């Protein structure tokens, strides 16, 4: 039996239609994906529909500026055991995996303050996810320090070590 190319195209076509339909009927899903790319493109974006969900990425020098001026609170999104081992000096720990808006620590935080979330490095997305969650809970100024703790250590900036 030879391959019937029409069937291949048919299978792919059915997948595409189902995918699009599914996304269409699941409310706002494509926008849901957009939230992630908003994080990446926030700096240059003007015409996104939902500005409240935009989270800005900051680089090491900006993060260091905030750190020096003591303007912002650094939030470590990693596990508590990683945090207890070492973290950016004066940062607090809110593990992303069991995030709960009723957490007493989160209730203590001022919603108008400046917060910078970080995790281990460029390729971990805990900090982005935590920032999205904080943002949806009404925190106005949340930034993501995208290069992460590894870069911070590499540059020998102040850290706490056990």
């Amino acid at each position: 039996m030879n391959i019937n190319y029409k069937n291949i195209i048919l299978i792919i076509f059915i997948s595409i239609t189902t995918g699009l339909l599914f996304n269409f009927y699941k409310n706002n899903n494509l926008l849901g994906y957009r939230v992630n790319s908003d994080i990446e493109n926030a700096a240059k974006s003007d015409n996104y529909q939902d500005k409240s969900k935009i989270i800005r990425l900051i680089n090491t020098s900006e993060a260091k500026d905030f750190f020096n001026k003591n303007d912002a609170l650094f939030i470590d999104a990693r596990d508590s055991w990683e945090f207890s081992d070492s973290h950016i000096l004066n940062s607090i720990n809110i593990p992303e995996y069991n995030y709960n808006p009723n957490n007493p620590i989160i209730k203590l935080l001022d919603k108008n303050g400046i917060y910078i979330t970080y995790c281990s490095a460029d390729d971990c997305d805990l900090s982005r996810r935590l920032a999205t969650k904080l943002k949806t809970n009404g925190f106005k100024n949340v930034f993501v320090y995208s290069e992460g703790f590894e870069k911070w250590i590499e540059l020998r900036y102040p850290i706490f070590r056990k």
Partner: protein
Amino acid sequence: MKFLTNKYFLFFLRFLLGIVFIFAGIEKINSPNSFFNSINNYKIFSDYISYSIVLILPWLELFIGILLIFNKYIKECLTIYMILLILFNILVFSAIIRGLNIDCGCYGNSINVKASYTKIAENFGLFFIALYLFLYYKNITMNE
């Protein structure tokens, strides 16, 4: 070598391929955002291509898995299956070469598999099973 064309053995292989893809597909449909992040971590695709992959790929995997289990359009499914596996392997390999330490995003959120040579070996295993079924499809039908 009789067992190689044994119909229960062949059924088992087909079932295995199907289950792997159905599982992968459902997991990705379940957690589109984390799948999107996994794709973005490879740092190859632009956002719009990533959206398209998130929308389409899981369903393609799911349908192929179902068709394989129900023994319909076997050759066509296996062709797509092998092409997908080769593409996945190229992606994972490129990630390893560039020294990215990332989740491969193969099974969505539930199982976190690192992009590594083990993953490539696993994909090649599936690839050769698919190739074997593809080449001996005629014998399979004769046997059944």
